[in-house]
């Protein structure tokens, strides 16, 4: 096979002869203040080689010392993924030469990872599926390489070297790209709730490699796998897997064999390309890290972490439904973003109807977020402001329509709701004399519609309300108009 593979436009997932087998490896950068083995700041996007020291540069004579918070974040992740936590933890050297690794080895964990044998319940294809977690282990991140064609060299920034990572390895339990996608979104959500990482794929805080193979349906042995790398979003993971499954299926149908190799996803071209690297076949020669003594944890320490875990998305959804009266539909949307769910609960606590709040948050507010392609944390809107707005719509101060206009303005500027209402003249007219006068006119102009209302046609009254609203440029209180219309018509 050549270096590149063109995608064909047919769907192999409908090919009943083959089954797709996917296992995922997720690398998560922890959000501790400092690196895993030294006191350099753990930050992204600062000037190259300014957060480095003798330890993370691997200078002779320097010694690593484990950041306690890294170990405990690892325990948190393990517990959240229903893993058992090893009470004996040690680190190991993974030896290989590559310029992103100044020591010539990566400190990782081999046979005693922090966590093992867990699972994550994932809603996929309309039902819950448990995806097995093989293990989660701690390790240090490598540096960043920039391949510069202009000077025909590779440039190395070691700021990232020593950034604490948790690598979460799943069992090969996923059977489609969609399942892999659902696993990743569920995993990311749980990790966000734990607040151990910003989980930002664009910054590389969360990275995913996929091991993909196919086999004849009914076969229990695994086929030869390829490892997919370089996917920068969950949707890219999905596209890369779909592409790779199609490629492998074509090869097998053509009687060719799958070569075990690492493939890089090319987002622009939508294809996978075999990784070409000067690095020889990997033979990591793991051995116990002599620069770090082992760690032992007591059951009491692990229990303490377990008790301190935040409520996870799955549990939160159930509480919203059972304790706060949120519908399953609304709740599912609300828990998808921890900030969004926190905002919801803060707002609810301030005193507002739960269904109204759900409608406003999952409707107009979500629309604002989508339109602006931003998250709630980026906005100047506070829970108090949203509650004030909803209650102003509810008590008739402003119309529903004006409420949405005000929301857009608040979201954009963070200005006071009162000021926006005054400035835009959005106060709803509840002046009964004025409304009465306009309703009378409308009734006189539409005798047939009035007849329809009398004969019990509900929609007909709506038409009259609409006419009156139009006359008053949408500023009238439709409830009051409706009351007037009903009263006038039954009195005539």
């Amino acid at each position: 096979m050549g270096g590149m593979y063109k995608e064909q436009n047919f769907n192999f997932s409908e090919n009943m002869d083959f089954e797709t087998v996917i296992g995922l490896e997720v690398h998560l950068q922890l959000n501790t203040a400092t690196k895993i083995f030294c006191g350099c700041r753990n930050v992204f996007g600062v000037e190259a080689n300014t957060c480095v020291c003798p330890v993370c540069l691997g200078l002779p004579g320097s010694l690593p010392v484990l950041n306690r918070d890294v170990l405990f974040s690892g325990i948190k992740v393990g517990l959240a993924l229903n893993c058992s936590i090893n009470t004996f933890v040690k680190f190991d050297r993974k030896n290989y030469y590559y310029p992103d690794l100044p020591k010539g080895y990566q400190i990782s964990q081999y046979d005693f990872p922090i966590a093992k044998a867990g699972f994550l319940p994932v809603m996929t294809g309309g039902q819950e599926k448990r995806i097995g977690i093989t293990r989660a282990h701690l390790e240090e991140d490598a540096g960043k390489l920039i391949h510069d064609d202009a000077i025909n060299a590779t440039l190395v920034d070691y700021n990232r070297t020593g950034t604490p990572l948790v690598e979460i390895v799943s069992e090969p339990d996923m059977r489609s790209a969609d399942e892999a996608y659902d696993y990743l979104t569920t995993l990311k959500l749980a990790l966000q709730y734990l607040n151990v990482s910003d989980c930002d794929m664009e910054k590389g805080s969360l990275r995913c490699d996929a091991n993909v193979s196919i086999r004849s349906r009914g076969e229990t042995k695994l086929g030869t796998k390829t490892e997919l790398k370089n996917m920068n979003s969950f949707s890219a993971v999905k596209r890369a897997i779909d592409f790779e499954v199609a490629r492998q299926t074509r090869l097998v149908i053509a009687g060719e064999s799958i070569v075990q190799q690492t493939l890089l996803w090319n987002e622009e071209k939508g294809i996978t390309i075999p990784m070409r690297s000067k690095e020889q076949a990997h033979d990591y020669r793991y051995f116990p890290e002599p620069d770090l003594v082992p760690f032992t944890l007591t059951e009491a320490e692990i229990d303490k972490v377990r008790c301190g875990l935040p409520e996870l998305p799955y549990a939160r959804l159930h509480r919203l439904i059972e304790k706060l009266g949120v519908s399953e539909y609304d709740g599912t949307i609300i828990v998808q973003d921890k900030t969004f769910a926190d905002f919801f609960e803060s707002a609810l606590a301030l005193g507002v109807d739960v269904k109204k709040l759900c409608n406003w948050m999952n409707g107009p507010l979500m629309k604002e977020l989508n339109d602006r392609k931003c998250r709630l944390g980026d906005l100047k809107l506070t829970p108090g402001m949203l509650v004030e707005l909803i209650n102003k719509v509810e008590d008739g101060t402003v119309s529903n329509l004006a409420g949405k206009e005000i929301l857009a303005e608040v979201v954009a500027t963070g200005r006071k709701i009162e000021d926006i209402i005054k400035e835009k003249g959005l106060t709803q007219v509840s002046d009964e004399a004025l409304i009465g006068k306009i309703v009378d006119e409308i009734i006189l102009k539409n005798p047939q519609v009035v007849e329809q209302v009398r004969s019990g046609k509900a929609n007909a009254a709506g038409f009259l309300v609409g006419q009156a609203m139009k006359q008053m440029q949408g500023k009238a209180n439709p409830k009051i108009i409706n009351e007037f219309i009903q009263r006038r018509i039954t009195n005539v």
Partner: protein
Amino acid sequence: MITKETVNYIASLSRLHIDEAENAGFVRNLEDILQYVAKLNKLDVAGVLPTSHVLKMENVFRDDKVSPSLTQQEALSFAIESHAGHYKVPKVIE
């Protein structure tokens, strides 16, 4: 069995250049070590935990507190070559 090829392979993984004479010496050395380990393997060690560290110490931590880093100039001062604040190395991906 340690062969000349095994020694060459290990040397290449470790980026070491060794000549023929050195290679022969390493074959003998490594073979002796393996024979000694084979002898140890005959011992009954059921119930003995593997040693993972020679020191009788455990749980050595540091707090998550920032300490000063080197300046970029200091960090690059021992680089063979540098460019625009980066270490410059031969291109690793074609």
